[in-house]
């Protein structure tokens, strides 16, 4: 059986305690789904033994985008512009390819104002973990519908959403992200394993995490409320994550499990809860997502994973050393080059 997160040891494999992964005290509403996600990020980073200084956090604007202040204080963070986090993250991660990029966005930040940058980020397969803390509304501007609000979902004021939602997971899969999952801020176990796998994956990880807004979208009639999501949650698999530094081999009955070898040598075990679902097949994934919409299911789990695709930094043939800190000798051609160019212009 997939195990619950192990009891937190006092220090992790690089000798840090969980406190070293904490951030400032949250200023978000008590009970906001975003807070739970911050906690899961702290746990996952701690357990994976990631050095916080190696992480760069990115966000746009929104309640969700504030949350990087509430975890990993020892990591640099860039709280950018509304909808423009993907470009900032792209630039920074190209400047320093050795960083572990972690982006946090909201459904408004991603699916409305930021949809252009989002789709192009997905296309590039830049190594980054991109999290959408999805509550179906603009929390920070006090509860207007976002573009992920489901058809028929209502606001507190009774206004009904009459447009189809954008499924960010389906988009991400179609556009080239190489690890796509949907989870729920209230599902500790699933989210924990998914985040660990995300850290181990090299390429664009896109996680749409339903994260209820207790203040503006947790009422009866909302399809992004705690109650609704709990009731309609349709997990595709039971996830367990085996880090590279742990050697656990468990035998599974053939056909019941998809075992994904991740880039750093760790393994993601997906025990199938649904017959025939293989997260390595794009078309299946997108079709299943469409079906879920038709059936009002909140389909969660690892929807798609491809560990073989070339990442953006590979395609650009970047050196191992960060571009940012290359010495002058590496980036300023010698005098003879200028002479050669000038000669050709004579």
């Amino acid at each position, binding site marked *: 059986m997939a195990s619950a997160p192990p009891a937190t040891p006092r220090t992790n494999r690089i000798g840090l305690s969980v406190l070293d992964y904490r951030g400032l005290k949250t200023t978000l509403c008590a009970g906001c789904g975003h807070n739970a996600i911050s906690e899961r990020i702290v746990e996952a980073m701690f357990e994976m033994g990631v050095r916080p*200084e190696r992480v760069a956090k990115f966000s746009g604007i929104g309640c969700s985008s504030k949350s990087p202040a509430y975890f990993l204080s020892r990591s*640099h963070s860039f709280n*950018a512009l509304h909808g423009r986090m993907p*470009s900032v*993250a792209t*630039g920074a*991660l*190209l400047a320093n390819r050795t960083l572990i990029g972690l982006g946090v966005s909201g459904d408004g930040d991603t699916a409305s104002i930021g949809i252009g*940058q989002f789709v192009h980020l997905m296309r590039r397969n830049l190594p980054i973990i991109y999290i959408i803390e999805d509550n179906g509304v603009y929390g920070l501007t006090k509860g207007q519908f976002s573009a992920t609000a489901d058809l028929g979902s209502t606001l507190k004021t009774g206004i009904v959403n009459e447009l189809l939602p954008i499924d960010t997971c389906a988009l991400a899969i179609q556009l080239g992200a190489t690890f796509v999952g949907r989870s729920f801020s209230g599902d500790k176990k699933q989210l924990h394993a998914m985040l660990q796998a995300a850290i181990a994956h090299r390429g664009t990880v896109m996680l749409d995490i339903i994260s209820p807004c207790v203040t503006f979208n947790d009422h009866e009639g909302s399809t992004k409320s705690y109650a609704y999501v709990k009731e309609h949650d349709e997990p595709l698999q039971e996830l367990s994550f085996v880090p590279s530094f742990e050697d656990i081999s468990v035998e599974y009955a053939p056909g019941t499990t998809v075992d994904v070898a991740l880039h750093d040598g760790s393994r993601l075990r997906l025990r199938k809860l649904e017959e025939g679902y293989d997260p390595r097949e794009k078309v299946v994934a997108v079709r299943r997502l469409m079906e879920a919409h038709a059936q009002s299911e909140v389909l969660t789990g690892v929807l798609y994973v491809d560990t073989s695709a070339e990442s953006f930094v590979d395609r650009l043939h970047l050196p191992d050393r960060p571009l940012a800190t290359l010495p002058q000798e590496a980036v300023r051609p010698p005098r003879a080059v200028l002479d050669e160019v000038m000669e050709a212009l*004579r």
Partner: protein
Amino acid sequence: MAELAVAVRDPSALPGGDPVLNDMTIQVATVNGSGSQSANTVLLRTIFQMGVPVSGKNLFPSNIAGLPTWYSVRASKDGYLARKKEVDLLVAMNAETAREDVAQVRPGGAVVYDAPLGLAQLRGDLAFYPVPFDKLVGSITGDAKLKKLLRNMAYVGVLARLLELEMAEVERAIHKQFGKKAKALELNLAAAHAGFEGAAALQKRDPYLIRRMDATRGKVIVDGNSAAALGALFAGVTLVTWYPITPSSSLVETLIGYLRKYRIGPDGKATFAVVQAEDELAAIGMVIGAGWAGARAMTATAGPGISLMAEFAGLGYFAEVPAVVFDVQRVGPSTGLPTRTSQGDVLSTAFLSHGDTQHILLFPATVEECFSMAVEAFDLAEGFQTPVFVLSDLDLGMNNWMSDPFSYPEQPIRRGKVLSKEDLDRLGEFARYKDVDGDGVTYRTLPGTDHPAAAYFTRGTGHDEHARYSERAEDWEGNLERLARKMDGARSAVPAPIAAGKGARLGVLAYGTSHHAIVEARDELRRERGIETDYLRVRAFPFAREVHAFFESHERVYVVEQNRDGQLAALLKLDLAPELAARVRSIAHITGLPLDARSVTEELAMMEGR
């Protein structure tokens, strides 16, 4: 006006008149997409190779093929490089515009035209030279498409005959143009010779001649976008992002060529990344992200792109992130005249974004400065931790200019105030926005710095010295005042203005490509109107102290620029004390054509009542 008033000569009397040597404007009128660019470059290079100072300007439509286009070549023994309004010699190849083109030629000038156009009757005060171009190139090729191209090289041959250009130099220029493309080389050489031979029968009836001089030795010919690209290459740029837009595209395209050639190691690893972004918002966003992470990052754009970059420009200023943006200005507002030149982005870029934002602007006037200012822009951006905008323009960026070769940057690359792990060990503490040195420029750390105290939270929201969120009035005010102090410090770090003149009462102040018209206009003013002027060429914003001093020492200062509202004049008025601001006189025009001296001379003289 004495010198410029050209007597209307009886065409029959022309051969007896004095020849006009190395001083003329040749205008070639063709159709866009007809392949005249190579021929025009060969013409320009031939004159250049004969040692005669020359400049070329391409006046082209926003169109891929079919609309009229003009190329003007100015040979000037005095070294004037500005556009000249008057056309001395017209090459009329475009039926659609031929009549209008002929009307532009100054009395006593000449017209080479495609014989079937039958233009000779249009005016009695010009020398007309009909040339049967189709027939001339017909013997070289039967291919209709090639013929159309070769007609262009044929007019170079015709001009060689009429102007007495040395055919050996024409051949050398053709070799340079077509390099290793053997077939094209052979055809074009043949076409030039066909033109030269075909023109043997023409009886020379105009005074214009090119004679060998020695004023271009050692010089290069290059466009400003290539020069800026070279500057970026030698500045050690590591991230380049862009979204194609005229007239900036060729800057990045040329840079990509240079980067691939000179910045890929033997291991196949590139010491750079180029990203064609989804739009200008993403292009600047990537630059800001990369600058934050420590890369030397740049993008290049034009007006519409600059508008889109506004929000990020403010973030860069406020969060204090280095970035270099080349704005190759074209005519706005809106899509405007996308293939015409202007200095119309100066005011909006100086304050690009909302709130109390201010940026460093650099104003290159020459291709040499496109190169050197590109290098400086990166040092300034990292030194002041702020976006730097290099405001070039279409005339500078896309036209070919004669120049001294560029000098290799002697200064080592300056990366600004960045703390390493060792620095942090030594200091024991770090506050991102604390003004330790009193110059407003604070220390930063780069992500990935392996020290528990290295991290900080970069934000566009109000913050204290530790980059912590703050809405406290003192924090806000203190931070904004420090930013103002930082910008004030930039006054003495940006390229200083360049002064010319010897203590006249009147001042002329200009920047960027307006410079070339000013050089000539000052001579005209002195010669024709007896008006002496001093000249200050401003090279950056915020303004250096010398700019204030220039106003202090002149009764009136004419600020000349290529926009409607006098944008730099407005910036100056904001910066100067009221009594000095009252000395600003604005001469601002925008036609889409590069500024010419005559317009400046006349307007200034009129404003002076002379």
